[in-house]
């Protein structure tokens, strides 16, 4: 086991799979000579050549659409969006073609799209978004949101192996901030199985991505008050591990759903609605949601700090639930 950053773990997972399976190739803007805006594919073109690490034109539909065609021809394409925000330019292809081809025509579309997402460094309205909720609503797509280096590698390999279109949301704010032990060998982590990030008895926090770490800090503060918080890291938002969430909800009977994307119509609503319906008898308090307010992601630090859910806000929310 080596200690890797979240970013290194992603590179490692991708490199591992490209060495093992020559059907895997990478396409995106500046992924070749430059190694990608975040250097995830640094050195890949030297190792795998120009035709397995393709610098694409500035054309997201061409990039993702071409991945679909190549996948149908038996390849295992991995597209990189320079920022998750730009996936909006491939929305039509993903929801219209990639998501529905298996159901309509029986044709699987095993593509992976890597999406550097999330805020926290004044990226502004177009370099900070978390668009997973929009895609999680589209039947046929899968959405992966790793929170740790170990998951980042294992889930990426699973995404590439998966016979469906998988959107892999890698959180930019975790890239270099989060380090962890990562097995050197190849391994997979099943899509759809949550991870209990922290065991607890009094309140369950359901979250994913960077918010897992925010929740963790908040949980530590609640310990001081003698409130024990369980944190369920969904790992994948679609499919999402309903059994694990309901299990934790029934155990603690109080649930907080937390995400960085905006609140209204965010995927947290699906989780909250499901828990409130299916664990109705077991709840000792309303299912609470903490998420970003319904605005674009602002640029200036004081605004962005007020936009992205912070530890204090989560602590306050947990206390409210504890006292309920």
């Amino acid at each position, binding site marked *: 086991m080596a200690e890797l950053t979240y970013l290194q773990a992603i590179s490692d997972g991708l490199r591992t799979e490209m060495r093992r399976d020559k059907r895997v*190739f990478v396409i995106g803007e500046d992924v070749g000579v430059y190694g990608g805006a975040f250097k995830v594919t640094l050195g890949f073109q030297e190792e795998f050549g120009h*035709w*397995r690490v*393709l610098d*694409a*034109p500035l*054309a997201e*539909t*061409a*990039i*993702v*659409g*071409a*991945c*679909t*065609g*190549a*996948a*149908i*021809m*038996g*390849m295992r*394409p991995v597209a990189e969006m320079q920022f998750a925000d730009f996936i909006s330019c491939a929305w*039509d*292809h993903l929801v*219209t*073609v990639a998501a*529905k*081809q*298996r*159901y*309509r*025509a*029986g*044709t*699987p*579309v*095993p593509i992976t799209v890597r999406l550097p997402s999330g805020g926290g460094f004044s990226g502004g309205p177009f370099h900070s978004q978390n668009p997973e909720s929009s895609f999680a609503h589209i*039947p*046929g797509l*899968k959405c992966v949101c790793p929170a740790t280096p170990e998951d980042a590698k294992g889930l990426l390999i699973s995404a590439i192996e998966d*016979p*469906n279109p998988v959107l892999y949301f890698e959180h930019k704010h975790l890239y270099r901030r989060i380090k962890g032990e990562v097995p050197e060998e190849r391994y997979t982590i099943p899509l759809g199985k949550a991870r209990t990030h922290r065991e607890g008895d009094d309140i369950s926090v359901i979250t994913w991505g960077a918010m897992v770490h925010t929740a963790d800090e908040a949980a530590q503060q609640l310990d001081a008050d003698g409130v024990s918080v369980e944190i369920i890291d969904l790992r994948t938002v679609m499919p999402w591990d309903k059994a694990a969430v309901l299990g934790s909800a029934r155990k603690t009977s109080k649930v907080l759903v937390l995400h960085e994307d905006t609140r209204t119509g965010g995927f947290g609503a699906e989780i909250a609605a499901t828990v409130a319906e299916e664990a109705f008898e077991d709840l000792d308090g309303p299912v609470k949601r903490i998420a970003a307010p319904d605005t674009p992601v602002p640029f200036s630090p004081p605004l962005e700090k007020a936009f992205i859910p912070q530890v204090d806000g989560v602590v306050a929310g947990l206390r409210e639930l504890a006292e309920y």
Partner: protein
Amino acid sequence: MAVAREAEPVGSLSEVREAGLDREDLLGVYRNMVLTRGIEERGHILYRQGKIPGSFYTGRGNEAASVGIATAMGADDVGTPLHRDMGVHIVKGVEPWRIFAQYMGRADGPTKGRDGNVHMADSKLGLIAMVSHLPAMLPVAVGCALAFRIREEKRVAVGWFGEGASARGDCHEAMTLAGVRKLPMVFVCDNNQWAYSTPSHLEFATEHVADRAEAYGFEGIVVDGTDVLAVYREARRAIEKARSGGGPTLIESVTLRMEGHAVHDDAFYVPKEMMERWAESDPIESFRTWLRTNADMTDAEEEEITGEVKRTLNEALRRADESPLPDASSLTEGVYASPEDLDTPHHK
């Protein structure tokens, strides 16, 4: 104004032989055109009988174009035909009864009743099922060509689009990627002069769609889409050029949409004279005459073909009608693929 090359009509039988078709092949081509139209004509009847749910589209007038292009494709070449390109499915060998089953939303249609019309394809025949959104399949076709290039296979991808859909961004992005990477790709524009009720001059500002090819670094060709042999020859050239590393070609096949946009549309907006003029160059009738004069097709041969097509259609209709409607219990199956689904020739 740069103009794409305008293809010559094909003259003699010997010229056709050069292009790779012997007399037998030609009769086969004729048969496929007749069958293509037959299927869509029967579809019309089914529709009027109330047996086809939703709307219904045909490619009347486009039989030469769709059959001509598909005839030029190699067995391992792939394509993304559209709603005017029934002939492609026919040439590639889809069973007619399954098409009728598809029309009627039956369980034995290629999409098991999940999609309708010609929104279908048999991937084993190298075809990929179209979506409604136009021309969303072009980037997909380019992706197939990219896979061939990466694996250094001598295969070609063919992507179809309408002259109206040429206005959409997908068309541009697909051609841009194919052009800069010189992919083994042939773009085929079914220019039937109308996009629903919208005439070409409101869709693009050049004389021909093919005039745009050079903006993407490849050759554009304009061919009479009612002349199956000219279409075949140009497609063959373009496909073999792509196969040998020459990069993409854009073939614009000019026809007239000989019916309304779909069955509900009487096409009042198409000038009567325009319809009449084009009716004179009906692709099937023209090729029949050509075969008679240049290949001495006999009455017997002709009756043989029309008879066989008729039997095929009757049999196909009977069999399709026996196919049940899908069971509601199948509704939620297969939204996601499972690993076994990748167990195809492509996915070895």
